[in-house]
């Protein structure tokens, strides 16, 4: 492996690497092909846009969760934090009547602050991430209800707000492809997260922490600081998810959010990121999130009865991951 020797030996793995990376999509592609054959309505522009739109919120949450999972941690609060950030935006824009940019900033800051708190509890108090973020999940769930007054906050006074997710910057240029902005936001978050993970010190420490936290500490790195930073970034991304969902519903729904963490984590794990940390990719997470929404959409399009939808979804999730394992083993 360590041979720097023959270029022939080098190109071999490279080609197969690209090929196998393509195969990673195979579960997703198989699903898409199957549904397209089964229903003529599946592979229509509108439906594809609907699938992408349905992926946007869970996709962003899953990317947020990816970061902490790579550190070997977990964040159960992503769902309720998303809601909390949406409510904060609602309070700023609707209750206080401040301008849109402040609402956006507020939501993202609220997410960052909450992630900072989670990270501090984990890094400084050594509370296990599961407990710290479970606690935060409950706290944020309650706080969302409290600050919203247990009712949805509508954004009717901020007309531009629903453009965040529903408008279509692409569509205004290419009317044939009215890609909703929400999907653009998802891709933007993905690109930024992938960049952070692969090119910045924060990303390096994210992998290092998940790989061997003690070794990082023994290397003289201030692991507390970096751990807190990872949770804060995760929180900030949840803030983006909060803006997306609020924009999509044109309201901040304070009771929503619990249970969403499971879908987000599922997307991460389906995408090949290991819950024990040290490895993971944003692209994998995106694929995982897409598999979940394609499945949900396809089964609905096929009018599969709802009770069977869950059975099929469960089975296919297991099979998709198993196929991915076989692929890696063949690698």
């Amino acid at each position, binding site marked *: 492996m360590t041979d720097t020797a023959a270029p022939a030996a080098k190109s071999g793995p490279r080609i197969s690497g690209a090929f196998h990376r393509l195969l990673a999509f195979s579960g997703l592609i198989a699903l898409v092909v199957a549904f397209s054959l089964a229903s003529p309505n599946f592979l229509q522009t509108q439906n594809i846009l609907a699938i992408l739109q349905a992926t946007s919120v869970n996709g962003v949450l899953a990317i947020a969760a990816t970061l902490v999972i790579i550190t070997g941690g977990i964040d159960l609060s992503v769902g309720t934090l998303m809601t909390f950030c949406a409510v904060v935006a609602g309070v700023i824009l609707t209750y206080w009547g401040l301008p849109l940019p402040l609402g956006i900033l507020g939501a993202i800051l609220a997410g960052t602050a909450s992630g900072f708190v989670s990270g501090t509890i984990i890094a400084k108090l050594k509370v296990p991430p599961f407990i710290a973020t479970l606690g935060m999940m409950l706290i944020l769930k309650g706080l969302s209800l409290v600050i919203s007054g247990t009712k949805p906050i509508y954004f009717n006074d901020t007309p531009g707000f629903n453009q965040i997710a529903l408008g279509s910057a692409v569509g205004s240029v290419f009317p044939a492809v009215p890609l909703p902005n929400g999907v653009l936001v998802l891709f933007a978050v993905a690109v930024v997260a992938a960049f952070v993970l692969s090119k910045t010190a924060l990303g*390096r420490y994210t*992998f290092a922490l998940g790989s061997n936290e003690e070794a990082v500490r023994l290397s*003289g790195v201030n692991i507390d600081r970096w751990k807190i930073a990872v949770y804060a970034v995760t929180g900030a991304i949840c803030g983006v998810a909060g803006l997306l969902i609020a924009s999509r519903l044109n309201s901040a729904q304070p009771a929503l959010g619990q249970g969403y963490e499971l879908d987000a984590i599922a997307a991460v794990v389906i995408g090949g990121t290991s819950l024990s940390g040290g490895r993971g990719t944003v692209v994998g997470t995106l694929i995982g999130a897409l598999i979940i929404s394609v499945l949900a959409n396809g089964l609905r399009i096929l009018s599969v009865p709802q009770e069977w939808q869950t059975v099929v979804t469960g089975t296919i999730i297991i099979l998709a991951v198993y196929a991915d394992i076989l692929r890696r083993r063949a690698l």
Partner: protein
Amino acid sequence: MTDIDKSFPGVRALAKARFELLPGEVHALMGENGAGKSTLMKILSGVYTRDAGTVLLNGQPVDITSPRQAQDLGVGIIHQELALMRDLTAAQNIFIGREPRRFGILDERQLNRDAAAIFASMNLKLEPTVRVETLTIAKQQMVEIAKALSYRSRVLIMDEPTAALNDAEIAELFAIINRLKAEGVGIVYISHKMDEIKRISDRVTIMRDGEYVGTVPGADTPIETIISMMVGRTLSNDTLVIPNTADAPIALEVKNLNRGREIRDVSFSVRKGEILGFAGLMGAGRTEVARAIFGADRRESGEIWVHGQRVGISSPKDAVEAGIGYLSEDRKHFGLATGLDVRNNIALASLQRFTGPAGVLDEAGMQKEAVGYIRQLAIKTPSDTQEARLLSGGNQQKVVIAKWLLRDCDILIFDEPTRGIDVGAKSEIYKLLNALAAEGKAIIVISSELPEVLRLSHRIAVMCEGRLTGILPGGASQEEIMRLATLRQSSVVESATQRKTA
């Protein structure tokens, strides 16, 4: 460092320990397993905080409370237990915390270039971008060394850096040490290999049971003196006796074993009562052969015969049932269940024997056996219920050995069995292996220490690049072994004929 005390729950690791290091000096720290060497050095490098005592650096009292602070004060350490981030590349590991950046963004090319430069200065052939996880223990150890060098510390602590290394790498390391010495770096050198101490150290400090015993000059103190200071008595040095096993039945026969580039058509056999040593350079594929026989890894082709019967081994369970035991070279990842206590680690491979009706375990029986081995192998532990991860490195190794002794297999494959084990215990283990052979067990010993192979083996198999290049009779010369160990593919034909005669 004077009057250093350190206690762990149930253990007094250090009691008024003392150590002194001059610039440009190689100062060896010696002691039995569990004497407190690693603990003392962890205090110096900020991993542990001391309970009492003073640390002076350049005459100034210092209080080192974190690894970071130790680094800033110019104290670097190579830990006994590898502390690498397995999912990162070699270069990323070396520069963790000090990544070169450009405009705030990691400069990966610079990183790899810097790492490559360090490797080059060490004469090490290693791609900086390879993931550490895929490296053998020896290569990982070299990465650790490279990392420690990259800090350019004024004080460099090396805690058993050569335990996993082969002669060639050791020679390379010593060249590096001499260079650092010339630059005025003070080096603390911990090792259980007595010949190294003689070769490299200026002074030797000996510890016993957490206490300071004495400091002697390295070059002109006889080894026997050092050993007796360590263990409090003198050791007899028994010589190799090769029993005549030519008529003994063959216990294990391996025919045409193959797996990729790592194992190429390996065939050999071991008779009952025989110790077959495996020699070879790092990466020769000895571990691979052992794992393939044991069913730990899949093999592409090849037959395994035990006591004249062909056995199908597709998992370690099959192997153990066929009477084969395998002690891994990597105790941390493949040997020890670190969360379990000593007793259960010893019993782990033999749990069936202690399982009564309804699956209830016979704790008393397990304890009796465990205590027996703790005594026999002199495992230093407060009790048999101490968590295995809290033992010193050498004692962990003894626990894993005990596990296989208790399992009582007919065929034992020991991969680097004495890694990190002190001289006293080492000779105990040699005696034990001889006794096991005398009982009629077939034993394979893989070792990177030629003296060990030479001292133990009734026959010596030598590997190079996945091939078995020859099998020599016991007591063969080092030169002959090295010749076979570096025998490249072109000359394999020759070795094949040799194998027949062996």
